[in-house]
């Protein structure tokens, strides 16, 4: 079973949900504190949602310089899988592990509701258990989730198939407002060139248990198991 390190910063608040979602699929999940410099043999690293360092300066701007992030950078550089969820996505962008940035929602409001997304890239350690173009309903909860990037960066992301999740346009089957934050190209999640670093705004850990009503997010966690088994056999 993969060892899954869930990194906790001061202000992380989705840490327990993420740990629990990873444990529920059988992963050997544990917390790593932001001051730690050792990921303790992690196979997978997850940066959970929350408000690290109170979102001071910019979301993720200070967390990026935590001691633990040097270890995360090394893990990512060696090809190790890293998933950033919400604030974790913001931290990965600030750390330049992913391109672009997440700015204040176009609608000015903090958006907390379910949205429909399409899985557009299934060749990652976090989405390999999904079908291509599979549609998921996942909760979002953020005030700064508007993905922006330079036009050539956006073109590269699209051309290289690095949009992992995309908000679905409103249809009868999808009654929720499309694109809840004004993201460029309706982008809800992306990956790096090698596909081992993934950042997403929706919260799969809040949609990974039948008691919570939604289960579409569990694939992110079962994918960690599947890809680990695939890589170690």
């Amino acid at each position: 079973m993969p060892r899954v390190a869930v990194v906790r910063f001061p202000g992380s608040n989705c840490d327990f949900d993420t740990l629990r979602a990873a444990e529920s699929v059988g992963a050997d999940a544990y917390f790593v504190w932001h001051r730690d410099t050792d990921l303790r043999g992690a196979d997978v690293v997850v940066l959970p949602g929350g408000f690290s360092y109170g979102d001071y300066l910019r979301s993720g701007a200070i967390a990026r310089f935590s001691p633990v992030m040097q270890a995360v950078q090394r893990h990512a550089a060696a090809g190790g899988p890293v998933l950033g969820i919400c604030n974790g996505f913001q931290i990965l962008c600030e750390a330049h592990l992913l391109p672009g940035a997440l700015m204040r929602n176009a609608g000015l409001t903090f958006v907390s509701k379910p949205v429909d997304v399409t899985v557009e890239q299934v060749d990652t350690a976090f989405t390999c258990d999904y079908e291509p173009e599979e549609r998921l309903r996942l909760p979002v909860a953020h005030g700064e989730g508007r993905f922006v990037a330079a036009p050539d960066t956006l073109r590269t992301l699209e051309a290289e198939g690095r949009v992992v999740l995309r908000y679905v346009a409103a249809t009868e089957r999808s009654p929720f407002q499309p694109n809840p934050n004004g993201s460029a190209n309706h982008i809800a999640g992306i990956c790096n060139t090698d596909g081992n670093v993934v950042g997403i705004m929706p919260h799969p850990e809040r949609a990974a248990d039948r008691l919570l009503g939604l289960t579409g997010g569990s694939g992110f966690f079962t994918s960690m198991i599947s890809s680990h088994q695939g890589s170690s056999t």
Partner: protein
Amino acid sequence: MTFRVHVRVLPRVGLLDPQGQAVEHALTALGFEEAGAVRIGRAIELDVTASSRDEAVARARQMCDKLLANPVTEDYLLDVESD
């Protein structure tokens, strides 16, 4: 020598600034129809110890590039005054 550094960080022109838009609407509602192109950023002040003004500017610029401003979405202005 100590230099007082004033940093103004603003969202890059051309990028949507919802805060600026909302405040512009509020100003219009208050009767300030002459107000336009409102943008909202942040002001940061700090002391920088350096041997010259040029060095203080160079160091402050590094601080902006590395932490105080996001190169993807923000531009910054520096104003350095000697003590």
